[in-house]
């Protein structure tokens, strides 16, 4: 009887430890996304397919597309992200990677390649873009979508938008090769479970 009780206690201890590890991982690493498939026009489908192929090719090369911002000490993997069921750009499934909007251009192509990253995690500490607000005009950003092919961008503007602002000028600026980095700013709105502002960094492609 006592032997069984002791076994139960040992089992509960392991269970508690597993819960503890899970809670830590869930709050500091894995991020919730509610990405879904939505009806898309043909041009978006083509772009999505192309960016998916790039990720698949990188996997075959045992490589992950990378975003590097030397001034902020950021060097992180780029995931592909789509659209949430609320019609917003989705986000990466963890707090350490960033997400490229796969239905837009690939970084380096003409148009606006948009990358989003979390500003903080479930316990309120800084995530990958926690210091993005400190970036300065003129700072350099590097994107490596394919192994050995590094593209350089230079920051040209730092803007703040309302969380529900029209996004046409962010996603559809097509007169050059832009890279747009987005993260949350401002204050949290509990009712809507989102921050009230978005920080948008615009960088333009330059020659290395």
């Amino acid at each position, binding site marked *: 009887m006592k032997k069984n009780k002791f076994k139960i206690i040992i089992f509960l*201890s392991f269970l*508690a430890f597993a819960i503890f590890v899970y809670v830590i991982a869930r709050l500091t690493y894995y991020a919730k996304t509610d990405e879904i498939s939505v009806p898309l026009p043909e041009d978006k489908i083509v772009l999505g397919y192309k960016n998916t192929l790039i990720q698949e090719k990188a996997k075959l090369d045992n490589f992950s597309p990378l975003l590097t911002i030397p001034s902020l000490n950021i060097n992180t993997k780029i995931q592909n992200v789509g659209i949430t069921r609320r019609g917003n*750009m989705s986000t990466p499934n963890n707090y350490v990677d960033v997400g490229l909007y796969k239905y837009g251009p690939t970084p380096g192509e003409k148009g606006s390649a948009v990358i989003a990253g979390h500003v*903080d995690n479930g*316990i309120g500490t800084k995530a990958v873009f926690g210091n993005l607000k400190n970036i300065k005009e003129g700072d350099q950003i590097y994107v490596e979508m394919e192994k050995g092919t590094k593209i350089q961008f230079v920051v040209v503007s730092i803007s703040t938008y309302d969380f*529900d602002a029209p996004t046409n000028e962010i996603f559809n600026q097509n007169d050059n090769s832009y890279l747009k980095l987005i993260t949350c700013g401002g204050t*949290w709105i509990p009712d*809507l479970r989102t921050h009230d502002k978005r920080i948008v960094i615009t960088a333009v492609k330059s020659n290395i």
Partner: protein
Amino acid sequence: MFFKKYNFMNIKKFVSYLVVFVFVLAVSGFVASKTEAYVSFPVGCSSAIGNSISSGNPCNGTSVATQSVSGCASPIGTSTTSGANCSGTSVPMQYLGGCSSIYGYSFSTNAPCNGTSVASVFTYSSDTTSPGLPTTGASALSFGNMLLILSSGLFVLGAIVYTSRRAKKI
């Protein structure tokens, strides 16, 4: 031999740890749910119009319910005919509680965000050539989350102390 030395009081102690753990978890869960809940209208109401579907009381908080506004298909926005606020409030409702757009379902109530009985799915059209901005923060949930970590951590600590004491007695 070992189990003869086994002190039954320690099981009680351990169970008390467990009870505290469950209690703290419950409290943190309650706090987290309160943080996430959206209460701008009475229960069973998605606007100030009409009566609560759960209690039957007027949704405007008075004794007489406000009638639906003509020219409105949902509580969101203003009437297409009179320009009055469709929600029956002094400020037009931009989004329903727990919604950050008119698409999909509410975070808090799971009701369609367009204010009708069927949720809209985001589609590209001549008006929407780009998605909405992403949601990239989670810090507001941190208080409840910290309690979760603390409580599960305390429980693990209790378990370690208990098992190490048992090991010494072997």
